[in-house]
């Protein structure tokens, strides 16, 4: 299947750009963090981390206490006696799982999630999952994967989770499209309805909302990724005989169109039908992006590594919003997956993989980008140095894929710049409540008698 990329490809993309790799302190989340969105997506699943108080605290800090319902995740905290071998960790784990499942009869899928401590003490969670499956099937399906910080970075936790589900998915001989990667429900619904209008037969998703809705795979399954960090899941699906449809990622109007076109081509959808179905949402997306692009155009951007979304997002910001990329850092560069995006991203920016955060901060300070995309630990310190920032984690937590979110995605990047402009603007008088709707804001002093500014003149 030849990839049908947009016509205006840059003369040279970034696929062959030498990659800057430095080894030092990394400032990134571990894979456990994925649980925050995965447990919302899979509504009958519980994520049980086998780890330490640190792991529990990380989940709490990353989730904020924002989603404080009784969460469908928890940590089995290892204690001194587990480590000293005084207690059989497996017996303890079985007990905690039995207790948990008794309290939550609604749980149909249980993920045992490995952490750094469980891996260092070589607690075999794969065997534990097998044993627990014996005890609790068919009511509950038990999986295991590692979200540890010594093995995984941030979004790789989702990859490991999905990859762990693939081997036990039911088999099928049907020709089906599988959409792979967790999307917010509203976005997933939009994507499915677009594919349906295009006339693409049976489309399934991984992950699914419930265990009973899990897709089947087989040699006639073709799959498209909606997240760029799913390398292991890609490999696991390929082992089941499924075939990947390479495509740029569905961010922005251009990315979404290229992604849909790759899928449409696979299913032999006629071009004119494709145009007819996508014309209206494309126009809407372009309009919405244009609104934010006025703020972004001509500005520079610097990505710290975070979620592996960096390459597709840099492609979107440079090609659709008129920005210039200075450095695009990513925790891992999976050229096999983000290759099409690399081809579209014009050469110029430094492409870096991994991190020495102090050296990278030095580079960012020297470059003084207009916008720095970075983690929460770095954002306020950089703001305090006068650099505008966008917290990367928001890009994983907010609906940003496909046409109807393209404007929101651009707006996420525009907001810090707009805020900076507002906060640094000279004081403006408070508009009068009777003022008519969207009238242009008055110039300072106008209508306040004799040019007294609001701050000097006070309230009349």
């Amino acid at each position, binding site marked *: 299947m030849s990839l049908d990329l947009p016509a205006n490809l840059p003369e040279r993309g970034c696929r062959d750009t030498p990659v800057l790799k430095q080894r*030092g*302190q*990394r*400032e*990134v*989340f*571990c*894979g*456990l963090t994925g649980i925050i969105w995965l447990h919302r997506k899979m509504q009958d699943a519980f994520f*049980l981390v*086998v780890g*330490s*108080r*640190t792991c*529990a*605290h*990380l989940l*709490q*800090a*990353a989730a*904020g*206490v924002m989603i*404080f*319902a*009784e*969460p469908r*995740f*928890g*940590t*089995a*905290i*290892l*204690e*001194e006696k*587990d*480590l000293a071998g005084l*207690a059989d960790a497996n017996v303890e*784990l079985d*007990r*905690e799982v039995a207790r*948990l499942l008794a309290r939550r009869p609604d749980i149909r899928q249980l993920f045992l999630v490995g952490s*750094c*401590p469980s*891996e*260092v*003490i070589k607690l075999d969670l794969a065997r534990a999952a097998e044993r627990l499956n014996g005890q609790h099937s068919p009511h509950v399906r038990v999986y295991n994967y590692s979200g*540890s*910080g*010594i*093995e995984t*970075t941030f979004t790789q936790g989702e990859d490991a989770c999905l990859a762990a589900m693939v081997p036990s998915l039911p088999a099928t001989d049907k020709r089906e499209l599988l959409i792979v990667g967790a999307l917010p429900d509203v976005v997933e619904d939009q994507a499915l309805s677009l594919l349906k209008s295009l006339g693409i037969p049976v489309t399934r998703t991984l992950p699914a909302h419930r265990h009973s809705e899990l897709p089947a795979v087989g040699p006639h399954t073709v799959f498209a990724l909606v997240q760029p960090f799913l390398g292991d899941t890609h490999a696991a699906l390929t082992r089941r005989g499924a075939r990947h449809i390479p495509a740029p990622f569905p961010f922005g109007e251009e990315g979404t169109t290229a992604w849909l076109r790759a899928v449409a081509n696979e299913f032999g959808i006629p071009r004119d039908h494709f145009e007819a179905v996508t014309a209206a949402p494309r126009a809407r997306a372009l309009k919405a992006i244009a609104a934010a692009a006025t703020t972004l155009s001509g500005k520079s951007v610097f990505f710290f590594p975070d979620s592996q979304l960096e390459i597709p997002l840099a492609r979107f910001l440079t090609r659709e919003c008129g920005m210039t990329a200075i450095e695009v850092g990513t925790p891992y560069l999976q050229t096999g997956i983000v290759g099409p995006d690399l081809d579209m991203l014009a050469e110029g920016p430094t492409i870096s993989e991994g991190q020495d955060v*102090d050296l990278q901060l030095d580079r960012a300070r020297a470059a003084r980008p207009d916008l720095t995309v970075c983690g*929460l*630990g*770095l*954002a*306020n*310190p950089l*703001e*305090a140095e006068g650099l505008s920032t966008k917290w990367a984690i928001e890009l994983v937590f907010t609906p940003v894929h496909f046409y109807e979110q393209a404007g929101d995605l651009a707006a996420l990047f525009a907001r810090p710049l707009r805020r900076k402009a507002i906060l640094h603007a000279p004081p403006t008088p408070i508009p009068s409540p009777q003022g008519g709707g969207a009238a242009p804001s008055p110039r300072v002093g106008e209508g306040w008698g004799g040019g007294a500014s609001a701050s000097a003149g006070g309230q009349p």
Partner: protein
Amino acid sequence: MKLTLWTYEGPTHVGAMRVATAMKGLHYVLHAPQGDTYADLLFTMIERRNHRPPVTYTTFQARDLGGDTANLFKDAAREAYARFKPQAMIVGASCTAELIQDDPGGLAQALGLPIPVIPLDLPSYQRKENFGADETFLQIVRTLAKPVARTDSITCNLLGATGLGFRHRDDVTEVTRLLALMGIAVNVCAPFGASPDDITRMGAAHFNVLLYPETGEAAARYLEKTCGQPFTKVVPIGVGATRDFLHEVSGLTGVSAKVDETGLRLPWWSASVDSTYLTGKRVFLFGDATHVIAAARIAATEIGFEVVGLGCYNREYARPMRAAAKAHGLEALITDDYLEVEAEIERLAPELILGTQMERHIGKRLGIPCAVISAPVHVQDFPARYSPQMGFEGANVIFDSWIHPLVMGLEEHLLTMFREDFEFHDAAGASHHGGKATTRIEAEPVEASGGDIFEQKNDTGAAGDLAWAPDAERELKKIPFFVRGKARRNTEKYAAERGVTAISIDTLYEAKAHYAR
């Protein structure tokens, strides 16, 4: 192994970070995997700090294990020294590094850095955040503070304020002002704002003020022993405690405890007519022991609430907590399991919760107002305005912030009088809080409030074999929501004590008369 959904305290190394981040000129080299760098955001986001915490993480990966994690640590420590040029360094391991036993202390000593290097031994699988802070501060003081000549005038040190503490920033300012009213200056405040050089001057103070026992007591005891500095035992939160504190300082120094109290408003605010609506309101308190003990005293004696339950999550202070609970005629709840706390709140059905961010969410779920009095903290516990808990201004702040979540006095009466009004009904909530008032749906048997636990049948309360007659149940619903829980409990208790199994309207009003006060 223990299943935990939410934790009150983080791991020990986060306690060490709270000390390091509060100080200046100190750097922490932490042997830890990459994911542990999440801890930075506690300080930069929740506390809105404009600097990264002074922490270097080695961020070792699986491929380094069995290979050269030790060299990784040495490189990180060497580079951190070169880049940040701290006056002193603390070094230690997170939970994962503790398992690989690289001995960060020994490795760092071997580097021969020209500054004091302080090894931390914080058992991650036994202890928690507060211990980590307390022990880290102790080790820093033990290494750097030596007996020195006393200052000519009377001075003290303030001990225990850290990063990410509940209102530590403003408490330090308030207590400094309070002591200044007595003519006593602060020699060193630590860890908050102190550099390692400042720590070496601590011995010059005449005594120590222990602001937060949870994070400063070990250092206070050490200084008492080695520098001969007595320390204060009263934590000045609340009017009575602040006056006791002033007398304690007076006893230590011979300076008069009489200070100007003109800014103090809590006593009159409690005594003024409007506050009769606060009298006897049933409150439940939970948090760290120090804040809960102080808050219970304020609640019971300075505002006139009824304390119906209290407890703390830090077992280290279980003993004083139990003693304080006993003084209120209660049994303390000592647990770090938030589900237990939730069950207890559900059982007691208080009218107000004074707790942590955890209890705030429990309250939200159960429809009970809550004010935060203790760590663990969240972004809204770092207000832009000056809002101490300690001293006389702290008492004023406490009055305001505890009263805020409640329905206002007159509003409460109106709700009682017109409780059948279709829009001004009790499920509409307090008028000064955002959120849309829900119109009462008349036909609905269960009220529109949704989150009202007192509506739940067969809850964990005293119900047992008791059955409510439908008209009694309807009558109960006419009682405003903030006292309905109490009415239900009292009625059921009254019925149970008399062997009544079917509750009628008469039972309801007999119980009301019985419990009248």
